[in-house]
């Protein structure tokens, strides 16, 4: 019940908010914060009971749900998802706390949306059934749509339009693929049990009941493509990224934090869980193309960040660059690379979430995000400058801070595999460019005094509330950077399991994989029991 409680708690909180009077804004905020903190505390408690030595699913809940179509209520958490769950429960209270001053209208609904978003995201990370996963995937979309559409900036309608256009395009494809997969799988199972006519009885959406080894190469290729497209849009992978700068610039601070910090991770997570977990041969076939796009994204996102004039757009494009490292690490098919990719997901959530928080704090004082209108802030706000710098450097992957651990492992893993070595070399230039655009950003926002624009800043330094918002970010950045072992152990174990299931040597080069994918389907026809 632990995982159900985790998902339900924010939903209950959102409902309770509905009974509070809208006029008592402070009370609404405090209640929302307390509940979000409770969820966080609950997830931390869960983490301490989590066994890092086993790579398998834990806290599993598996009961019947929609028997008519064979969908099950199946939840579970493993090394791949545990820290993404913690990231979600950490960033939600931070986002709520960060919105105390910024959001003054419809406070009740805003906080309820953040909590529902949390529930949806947690469901995505925990669901082990395709239909359940899809439901949560769509649930996640709605609150985000409202957060941008209601509390966003002037061009919010355009942003929501593009956001929905992109994500729905992916979702529809994924839904089709989910249904197709369940049916194809049922047919395969029925055929293996020499009962080809009665396959409808074997239809199941439970991930564990999908017999990957029975899928033909062609089936894998098409299903992978449909799933991957939906997830790649969320990541976002170049060239499917143009919704991101728009959504970020229009979203309120809390929306940007959750969007960059958590929502993007659902894409990367789902790629590992579904694309690699269900269609390993197709993953190997697509890997060179995906790695190409990942590396192009790293360099492209960084170069475009370099010339941005809007602070939020700059951070948004930097996300495109940073998310490239994740896919590069994952599709290196090495344990180091995949672990690095997953760690990078967590780290990107912390550092980019932190960057958006800083941008928000600056915006609340200056009411501008234009770099040319900012500057000269470091003298007036030394404390803010210090914390902002740590977060900037964490994003720039300075060793000793969190960003380095993920990028180093992802690049090292990709380098160790001969097939992805050159991708790693090109991707590593992203670290040079990251220093270039991030330090440029920091200088323009904090140091340079531009004549005629702002002569002397008189803004106050951070309030206690703002310090409390940034402190968890900074502490996690330093903590993970200095001592990442608690993260690495479970993530590495689960990464190895993912690779083992793909039937690849955990550290081996992928050219050992046969190139003809079609003949792989004929192996291991031993299927004694039906899937449910």
């Amino acid at each position, binding site marked *: 019940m632990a995982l159900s409680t985790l998902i339900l708690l924010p939903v209950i909180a959102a409902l309770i908010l509905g009974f509070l009077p809208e006029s008592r804004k402070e009370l609404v905020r405090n209640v929302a914060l307390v509940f979000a903190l409770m969820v966080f505390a609950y997830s931390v408690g869960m983490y301490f009971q989590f066994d890092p030595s086993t790579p398998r699913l834990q806290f599993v809940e598996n009961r019947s749900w929609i028997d008519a179509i064979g969908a099950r209520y199946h939840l579970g958490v493993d090394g791949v998802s545990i820290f993404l769950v913690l990231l979600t429960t950490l960033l939600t209270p931070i986002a709520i706390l960060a919105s105390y001053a910024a959001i003054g209208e419809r406070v009740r609904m805003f906080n309820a949306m953040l909590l529902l978003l949390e529930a949806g995201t947690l469901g995505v990370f925990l669901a082990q059934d395709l239909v359940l996963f899809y439901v949560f995937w769509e649930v996640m979309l709605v609150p985000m749509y409202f957060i941008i559409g209601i509390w966003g900036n002037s061009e919010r309608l355009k942003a929501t339009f593009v956001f929905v256009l992109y994500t729905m395009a992916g979702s529809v494809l994924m839904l089709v693929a989910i249904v197709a997969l369940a049916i194809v799988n049922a047919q395969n199972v029925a055929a293996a049990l020499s009962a080809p006519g009665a396959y409808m009885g074997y239809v199941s959406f439970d991930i564990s009941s999908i017999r990957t080894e029975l899928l033909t190469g062609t089936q894998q290729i098409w299903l992978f493509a449909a799933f991957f497209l939906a997830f790649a849009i969320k990541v976002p992978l170049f060239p499917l990224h143009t919704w991101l700068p728009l959504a970020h610039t229009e979203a309120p601070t809390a929306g940007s934090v959750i969007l960059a910090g958590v929502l993007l991770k659902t894409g990367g997570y789902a790629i590992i869980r579904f694309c690699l977990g269900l269609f390993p041969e197709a993953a190997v076939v697509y890997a060179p193309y995906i790695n190409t796009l990942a590396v192009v994204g790293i360099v492209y996102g960084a170069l475009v960040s370099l010339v941005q004039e809007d602070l939020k757009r700059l951070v948004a494009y930097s996300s495109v660059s940073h998310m490239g490292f994740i896919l590069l690490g994952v599709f290196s098919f090495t344990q180091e690379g995949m672990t690095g990719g997953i760690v990078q997901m967590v780290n990107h959530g912390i550092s980019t979430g932190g960057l958006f928080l800083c941008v928000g704090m600056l915006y609340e004082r200056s009411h501008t995000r234009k770099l040319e209108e900012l500057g000269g802030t470091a003298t007036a706000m030394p404390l803010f400058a210090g914390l902002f710098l740590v977060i900037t450097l964490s994003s720039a992957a*300075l060793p000793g801070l969190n960003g380095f651990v993920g990028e180093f*492992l992802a690049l090292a893993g990709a380098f*160790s595999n001969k097939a992805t070595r050159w991708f790693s070399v090109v991707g590593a230039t992203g670290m040079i460019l990251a220093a270039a655009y991030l330090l440029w950003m920091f200088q323009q926002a904090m140091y*340079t005094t531009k004549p005629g624009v702002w002569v002397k800043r008189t803004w106050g330094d951070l309030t206690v509330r703002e310090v409390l918002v940034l402190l968890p970010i900074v502490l996690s950045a330093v903590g993970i950077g200095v001592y990442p*072992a608690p993260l*690495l152990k479970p993530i590495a174990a689960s990464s190895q399991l993912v690779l083992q299931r793909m039937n690849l040597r955990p*550290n081996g080069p992928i050219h050992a994989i046969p190139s003809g994918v079609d003949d792989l389907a004929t192996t291991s026809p031993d299927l004694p029991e039906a899937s449910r």
Partner: protein
Amino acid sequence: MTTAIALIPFWPLLGFLINILFGKRLRSASAYLAIGMLALSFLTSVAVFTRFVGDPASVLVPLFSWMSVGALNVEVNFLVDQLTVVMLLVVTGVGTLIHVYSVGYMHGDERYSRFFAYMNLFAAMMLVLVLADNYVVMFVGWECVGLCSYLLIGFWFERPFGSGTTNDAARKAFIVNRVGDFGFLLGVFLIWTAVGGVSFQQTSSAVESGYVTPGVATIATLLLFIGATGKSAQIPLYVWLPDAMAGPTPVSALIHAATMVTAGVYMVARSHFLFDIAPFSQNVVLWVGALTALFAASMGVQENDIKKILAYSTISQLGYMFMGVGAGAYAAGVFHLMTHAFFKALLFLGAGAVIHALHGEQDITRMGGLRNRMPLVHGTFLIGALALAGFPLTAGFFSKDSVLAGVYAHGDFAVWCIGVLTAGVTAFYTFRLYFLVFSGSSRDEKGRDLHAPASSMTSILLILAILSLVGGYVELPFHILAAFSAFLSPVVGMSSHEGIPELALMTVVFLFVLGGIGVSWAWYGRREQDATALAAEPANPFLRTLRRKWYVDEIYEVLLIRPIRWTSRTVLWRVIDEWIIHGFLVQFCGGYLWKAIGFVVSFSHTGRVGSYAFGIVVGVLVIISLIAR
């Protein structure tokens, strides 16, 4: 012993933490805290040194496992051997002296405690770099000293510097270093894939047992050396160091002369087992060092900023160190590293005293006549200048001689010639600086009302002057004494100087040095100089090119920075991102598709969300019917 070693970088780190959190409340005590912490590290280092006098075995201090995934295992362990000890003594010793000097120099600064916090952080990270037992932890120190360099170059971020601000210089330093770090990182990856580990001991034993082919070693060492050209300011990545002079002078002395910039030399010496089986890389190191030495010296000839002259001399002397380690004379390279730390720190701190006295003036064309008015600064600066020029019997003489002898013994006559020529140019520009600052009479009004240096500053100058004089008597030519190379030999081995005409070589070098000083005296020391004539753009095109630093910054700007910015802005952002992907594919195609669907569906439904649901259902049904047949 092991706990004491583990605490060496911890003390300054603790000083940093206390100062960054509570520095404002500590006021002037923050400086004493910082000094005390680093002095503790120095005393520990001395204790470690005495241990090594009797017992040559290296000490490994295991701390904790940092990143352990699959075949990659990075442990935070400290390795102390003779090479480490030399670096520890230089970093903590010279570092403590410069911390003490800073008390006077930074007096009254509004971010006084912040300055000492950063200096302590730098010392801590430099010590991590030096103590690391593997390439990844070394890289942590390597990048973090770069961060401290960034913070301290831009310490006075409100101040203009050149055509921009000090922060432009700081940013340039960090980014150029990142270019080098790119190479370093790939080198580490390659070593890891070839060796299966990243520690120095694993790598060296893998080399010994033949697991590392010369080809891999060559590529790995070249990649590592790219890192060294960044950190140690060699061609082509030296461009950040002259600009780094935007920082306070004690920073220039500590980070950009005595310690951080020598990290590349240390790294090459530390990786000698790889370089030893990669002669091509050794030659690259040798030649890059030689060419950088001469090239940087040439730029010192026409520079008028007192700190930038010293910066060019630093680049040039680092070139000598690389000549040494590139020729396999590792002990000679490290020897020059040590003496250079003494005399260059002395020169920078002397220059700081001059700048301090002249209320911030850094232009030597507006100085002059300080010999009698600041006798102590003058005397110590002269000692530093003689050591830099390699004048006989100073510390710089012995170490430079040792490097050049090593190069000659290695059989690189051409490189030796470049080294000798550079020695002459060095003597020339060093004494141009000396004469313009100290001889004649003051060429500017600021010189009339001197700001006397604090006694804490002058006492440090005296100590460093003594070290610049006697610091070389640990290694003497003609086989008289080889204490330094013998001490290092358990780590890097002994290089033989047998059969080279040492006296003749030394005489040639001495003649060049004397010639340089002589020409300098004839042009600048013999008579009064005119400030406007000195500052004026030289008519001679060659000298003008030198004044403009061979236009390298301009070339980088035109060939690299502008094309990258133009491509990013115009091609990638405006055309590809906004027009093609977003404008055409998404908004035009996607939008029309959307409208078309909406138009069709609107016959039965009105709302957009509703139409979507309908579309989904239809689509799913179609697909199911197709697949289920």
